[in-house]
Protein backbone atom coordinates (compact mmCIF):
# COMPACT_ATOMS: atom_id res chain seq x y z
CA UNK A 1 0.00 0.00 0.00
CA UNK A 2 1.20 3.47 -0.85
CA UNK A 3 2.74 5.39 2.01
CA UNK A 4 0.72 8.20 3.53
CA UNK A 5 2.43 11.52 2.91
CA UNK A 6 1.40 14.99 3.93
CA UNK A 7 1.83 16.11 0.31
CA UNK A 8 -0.66 13.52 -0.95
CA UNK A 9 -3.10 14.38 1.83
CA UNK A 10 -2.90 18.07 0.96
CA UNK A 11 -3.70 17.23 -2.66
CA UNK A 12 -6.56 14.93 -1.70
CA UNK A 13 -8.09 17.14 0.95
CA UNK A 14 -7.16 20.50 -0.53
CA UNK A 15 -6.39 22.01 2.84
CA UNK A 16 -3.26 21.86 4.96
CA UNK A 17 -4.95 21.80 8.34
CA UNK A 18 -7.27 18.99 7.25
CA UNK A 19 -4.29 17.13 5.85
CA UNK A 20 -2.37 17.50 9.10
CA UNK A 21 -5.38 16.37 11.13
CA UNK A 22 -5.81 13.28 8.93
CA UNK A 23 -2.07 12.56 9.13
CA UNK A 24 -2.17 12.75 12.92
CA UNK A 25 -5.18 10.44 13.11
CA UNK A 26 -3.54 7.88 10.84
CA UNK A 27 -0.33 8.10 12.88
CA UNK A 28 -2.31 7.32 16.02
CA UNK A 29 -4.18 4.44 14.39
CA UNK A 30 -0.97 2.83 13.23
CA UNK A 31 1.02 3.38 16.39
CA UNK A 32 3.53 5.56 14.56
CA UNK A 33 3.65 7.96 17.48
CA UNK A 34 2.91 11.66 17.46
CA UNK A 35 5.34 12.65 14.76
CA UNK A 36 6.04 16.34 14.49
CA UNK A 37 7.21 18.49 11.62
CA UNK A 38 10.78 18.41 12.83
CA UNK A 39 11.76 15.92 10.13
CA UNK A 40 13.61 16.97 7.01
CA UNK A 41 11.11 18.38 4.50
CA UNK A 42 8.39 18.32 7.15
CA UNK A 43 6.31 15.35 8.18
CA UNK A 44 7.81 12.03 7.09
CA UNK A 45 5.94 9.40 5.08
CA UNK A 46 4.01 6.82 7.09
CA UNK A 47 4.52 3.26 5.86
CA UNK A 48 0.95 2.07 6.36
CA UNK A 49 1.60 -1.02 4.22
CA UNK A 50 3.01 -2.83 7.22
CA UNK A 51 -0.13 -2.39 9.27
CA UNK A 52 -2.84 -4.97 9.70
CA UNK A 53 -5.56 -4.96 7.07
CA UNK A 54 -8.03 -3.57 9.60
CA UNK A 55 -5.75 -0.64 10.41
CA UNK A 56 -5.09 0.04 6.74
CA UNK A 57 -8.82 0.12 6.16
CA UNK A 58 -9.28 2.49 9.09
CA UNK A 59 -6.57 4.75 7.65
CA UNK A 60 -8.41 4.91 4.34
CA UNK A 61 -11.62 5.67 6.21
CA UNK A 62 -9.93 8.61 7.92
CA UNK A 63 -9.10 10.07 4.51
CA UNK A 64 -12.60 9.41 3.19
CA UNK A 65 -14.14 11.02 6.25
CA UNK A 66 -11.88 14.05 5.89
CA UNK A 67 -13.02 14.38 2.30
CA UNK A 68 -16.59 14.36 3.55
CA UNK A 69 -17.35 10.93 2.22
CA UNK A 70 -19.37 9.24 4.97
CA UNK A 71 -19.30 5.79 3.40
CA UNK A 72 -16.51 3.57 4.52
CA UNK A 73 -13.60 2.90 2.23
CA UNK A 74 -14.38 -0.28 0.42
CA UNK A 75 -10.99 -1.49 -0.72
CA UNK A 76 -7.45 -1.64 0.43
CA UNK A 77 -4.37 -2.62 -1.44
CA UNK A 78 -3.18 -5.79 0.12
CA UNK A 79 0.30 -5.14 1.49
CA UNK A 80 1.53 -8.52 0.32
CA UNK A 81 0.69 -7.55 -3.26
CA UNK A 82 2.74 -4.39 -3.17
CA UNK A 83 5.72 -5.41 -1.11
CA UNK A 84 8.60 -6.88 -3.04
CA UNK A 85 7.24 -5.60 -6.33
CA UNK A 86 9.41 -3.90 -8.91
CA UNK A 87 9.93 -0.19 -8.98
Amino acid at each position, binding site marked *: *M*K*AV*TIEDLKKELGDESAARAAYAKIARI*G*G*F*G*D*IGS*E*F*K*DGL*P*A*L*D*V*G*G*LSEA*KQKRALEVISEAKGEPEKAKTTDK*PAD*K*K*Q*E*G*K
Partner: protein
Amino acid sequence: MAGTAPNWRVAARALGEGQLWANLAIPGAGARLTLHTDGTPESVANPNAFHLGATKSGAKLMVKPTRQDFFVDEITAPVDTIITAMESAIAAELVGVTDMDLLELLTSGFGTLSSASGYEEISFGTKADTFTSIAHIFPTREDPTKFAVWHLYKAMNDAGLDFGSAKKEMSFTPVNFKSYAISTRAAVDQYGKYWKQAA
Protein backbone atom coordinates in the same frame (compact mmCIF):
# COMPACT_ATOMS: atom_id res chain seq x y z
CA MET B 1 26.51 -38.30 29.83
CA ALA B 2 27.08 -36.48 26.53
CA GLY B 3 28.59 -33.08 25.88
CA THR B 4 26.68 -30.17 24.39
CA ALA B 5 27.02 -29.35 20.70
CA PRO B 6 28.67 -25.96 20.14
CA ASN B 7 27.07 -23.42 17.84
CA TRP B 8 29.75 -21.27 16.21
CA ARG B 9 27.16 -18.85 14.75
CA VAL B 10 29.24 -18.44 11.61
CA ALA B 11 26.14 -18.57 9.42
CA ALA B 12 24.96 -15.43 11.19
CA ARG B 13 28.05 -13.39 10.40
CA ALA B 14 27.89 -10.01 8.68
CA LEU B 15 30.37 -9.68 5.85
CA GLY B 16 29.77 -7.55 2.80
CA GLU B 17 28.77 -4.09 1.80
CA GLY B 18 25.48 -2.49 2.68
CA GLN B 19 23.63 0.66 1.75
CA LEU B 20 22.75 3.72 3.77
CA TRP B 21 19.35 5.28 3.15
CA ALA B 22 17.71 8.32 4.72
CA ASN B 23 14.33 10.07 4.52
CA LEU B 24 12.62 6.72 4.89
CA ALA B 25 9.01 6.25 5.86
CA ILE B 26 8.27 5.55 9.50
CA PRO B 27 6.93 2.04 10.09
CA GLY B 28 3.86 1.55 12.22
CA ALA B 29 3.71 -0.32 15.50
CA GLY B 30 4.89 -3.88 15.01
CA ALA B 31 5.91 -3.25 11.40
CA ARG B 32 9.23 -2.87 9.64
CA LEU B 33 10.73 -0.92 6.76
CA THR B 34 9.26 -2.17 3.50
CA LEU B 35 11.97 -3.53 1.22
CA HIS B 36 12.05 -4.32 -2.47
CA THR B 37 13.39 -7.77 -3.38
CA ASP B 38 16.80 -6.23 -4.16
CA GLY B 39 17.11 -4.95 -0.61
CA THR B 40 16.52 -1.29 -1.42
CA PRO B 41 13.63 0.58 0.24
CA GLU B 42 10.41 -0.16 -1.62
CA SER B 43 9.70 3.04 -3.49
CA VAL B 44 5.93 3.25 -3.06
CA ALA B 45 6.18 2.72 0.66
CA ASN B 46 9.23 5.02 0.90
CA PRO B 47 8.59 7.78 -1.64
CA ASN B 48 11.30 10.10 -0.30
CA ALA B 49 14.09 7.57 0.22
CA PHE B 50 17.53 9.09 -0.28
CA HIS B 51 20.69 7.04 -0.81
CA LEU B 52 23.68 8.39 1.08
CA GLY B 53 26.13 6.92 -1.41
CA ALA B 54 29.43 5.15 -1.00
CA THR B 55 31.39 4.94 2.23
CA LYS B 56 35.05 4.62 3.08
CA SER B 57 34.66 1.36 4.98
CA GLY B 58 31.01 0.55 5.47
CA ALA B 59 28.90 1.56 8.43
CA LYS B 60 29.09 1.06 12.16
CA LEU B 61 25.83 0.31 13.92
CA MET B 62 25.54 0.96 17.62
CA VAL B 63 23.02 0.82 20.42
CA LYS B 64 24.21 1.17 23.98
CA PRO B 65 22.59 1.63 27.36
CA THR B 66 24.06 3.65 30.18
CA ARG B 67 23.39 1.91 33.46
CA GLN B 68 23.46 3.05 37.03
CA ASP B 69 24.26 0.36 39.57
CA PHE B 70 23.06 0.45 43.15
CA PHE B 71 24.88 -0.85 46.18
CA VAL B 72 24.27 -1.65 49.79
CA ASP B 73 26.95 -1.04 52.33
CA GLU B 74 27.29 -4.67 53.31
CA ILE B 75 27.81 -6.15 49.84
CA THR B 76 30.56 -5.22 47.42
CA ALA B 77 28.78 -6.14 44.19
CA PRO B 78 25.85 -4.04 42.94
CA VAL B 79 22.50 -5.38 44.01
CA ASP B 80 20.44 -3.62 41.40
CA THR B 81 20.77 -1.65 38.17
CA ILE B 82 18.65 0.52 35.93
CA ILE B 83 19.14 1.97 32.48
CA THR B 84 19.45 5.74 32.78
CA ALA B 85 20.09 6.54 29.12
CA MET B 86 20.09 4.89 25.74
CA GLU B 87 22.19 5.81 22.75
CA SER B 88 21.92 4.38 19.26
CA ALA B 89 23.60 5.54 16.08
CA ILE B 90 24.78 4.77 12.58
CA ALA B 91 28.30 6.00 11.79
CA ALA B 92 30.19 5.98 8.51
CA GLU B 93 32.45 8.08 6.32
CA LEU B 94 30.77 9.29 3.15
CA VAL B 95 32.44 10.04 -0.15
CA GLY B 96 29.90 12.47 -1.61
CA VAL B 97 31.38 15.63 -0.19
CA THR B 98 30.32 17.84 -3.10
CA ASP B 99 26.75 16.56 -3.29
CA MET B 100 24.84 19.47 -1.84
CA ASP B 101 21.63 17.53 -1.28
CA LEU B 102 23.61 15.07 0.80
CA LEU B 103 25.40 17.84 2.67
CA GLU B 104 22.09 19.49 3.51
CA LEU B 105 21.02 16.24 5.17
CA LEU B 106 24.30 16.17 7.11
CA THR B 107 24.09 19.77 8.32
CA SER B 108 20.84 19.67 10.22
CA GLY B 109 20.46 22.74 12.36
CA PHE B 110 23.11 24.81 10.60
CA GLY B 111 23.16 24.19 6.83
CA THR B 112 20.85 25.80 4.29
CA LEU B 113 20.77 24.58 0.71
CA SER B 114 20.12 26.92 -2.16
CA SER B 115 20.78 26.78 -5.86
CA ALA B 116 20.21 28.72 -9.02
CA SER B 117 21.62 28.72 -12.50
CA GLY B 118 25.33 28.13 -12.20
CA TYR B 119 25.70 27.15 -8.57
CA GLU B 120 24.55 25.07 -5.61
CA GLU B 121 25.50 26.06 -2.08
CA ILE B 122 25.18 25.26 1.58
CA SER B 123 25.34 28.31 3.77
CA PHE B 124 26.26 27.86 7.42
CA GLY B 125 24.32 29.42 10.25
CA THR B 126 21.95 28.13 12.89
CA LYS B 127 18.38 27.19 12.07
CA ALA B 128 15.77 24.72 13.26
CA ASP B 129 16.93 21.13 13.70
CA THR B 130 15.53 18.48 11.43
CA PHE B 131 15.61 14.71 11.78
CA THR B 132 15.57 11.88 9.31
CA SER B 133 14.55 8.25 9.33
CA ILE B 134 17.70 6.36 8.38
CA ALA B 135 18.66 2.73 7.82
CA HIS B 136 21.67 0.64 6.90
CA ILE B 137 20.62 -2.36 4.83
CA PHE B 138 22.94 -5.26 4.03
CA PRO B 139 22.56 -8.77 2.64
CA THR B 140 22.92 -11.61 5.08
CA ARG B 141 25.87 -13.91 4.51
CA GLU B 142 23.78 -17.02 5.01
CA ASP B 143 21.38 -15.99 2.21
CA PRO B 144 22.31 -13.01 0.01
CA THR B 145 18.69 -12.74 -1.15
CA LYS B 146 17.70 -11.86 2.40
CA PHE B 147 18.60 -8.59 4.08
CA ALA B 148 19.30 -7.24 7.52
CA VAL B 149 18.20 -3.74 8.42
CA TRP B 150 19.42 -1.38 11.14
CA HIS B 151 16.74 1.33 11.18
CA LEU B 152 16.68 4.45 13.34
CA TYR B 153 13.30 6.17 13.12
CA LYS B 154 14.37 9.68 14.09
CA ALA B 155 18.03 10.57 13.76
CA MET B 156 20.35 13.44 13.11
CA ASN B 157 23.98 13.66 12.07
CA ASP B 158 25.91 15.14 14.98
CA ALA B 159 29.33 14.90 13.34
CA GLY B 160 28.97 17.96 11.14
CA LEU B 161 31.20 18.11 8.08
CA ASP B 162 34.90 17.38 8.28
CA PHE B 163 36.80 16.59 5.12
CA GLY B 164 39.87 17.56 3.23
CA SER B 165 40.92 18.07 -0.33
CA ALA B 166 44.17 16.50 -1.42
CA LYS B 167 45.84 14.96 -4.43
CA LYS B 168 46.83 11.69 -2.79
CA GLU B 169 43.92 11.08 -0.48
CA MET B 170 40.28 10.87 -1.42
CA SER B 171 37.94 12.93 0.71
CA PHE B 172 35.39 11.45 3.04
CA THR B 173 33.32 13.15 5.71
CA PRO B 174 32.48 11.29 8.90
CA VAL B 175 28.83 11.03 9.88
CA ASN B 176 27.22 9.90 13.09
CA PHE B 177 23.47 9.66 12.86
CA LYS B 178 22.37 9.68 16.46
CA SER B 179 18.91 8.42 17.28
CA TYR B 180 16.23 10.30 19.20
CA ALA B 181 13.07 8.82 20.65
CA ILE B 182 9.61 9.19 19.20
CA SER B 183 8.35 9.25 22.73
CA THR B 184 4.73 8.51 21.93
CA ARG B 185 5.49 5.17 20.28
CA ALA B 186 5.37 1.99 22.34
CA ALA B 187 8.14 2.08 24.93
CA VAL B 188 9.90 -0.95 23.46
CA ASP B 189 10.01 0.57 19.97
CA GLN B 190 10.80 4.28 20.27
CA TYR B 191 14.29 4.49 18.75
CA GLY B 192 14.53 1.98 15.97
CA LYS B 193 14.84 -1.65 15.09
CA TYR B 194 17.40 -4.20 13.93
CA TRP B 195 15.81 -6.98 12.00
CA LYS B 196 16.48 -9.43 9.21
CA GLN B 197 14.41 -11.21 6.65
CA ALA B 198 13.92 -14.90 7.28
CA ALA B 199 12.55 -17.73 5.21
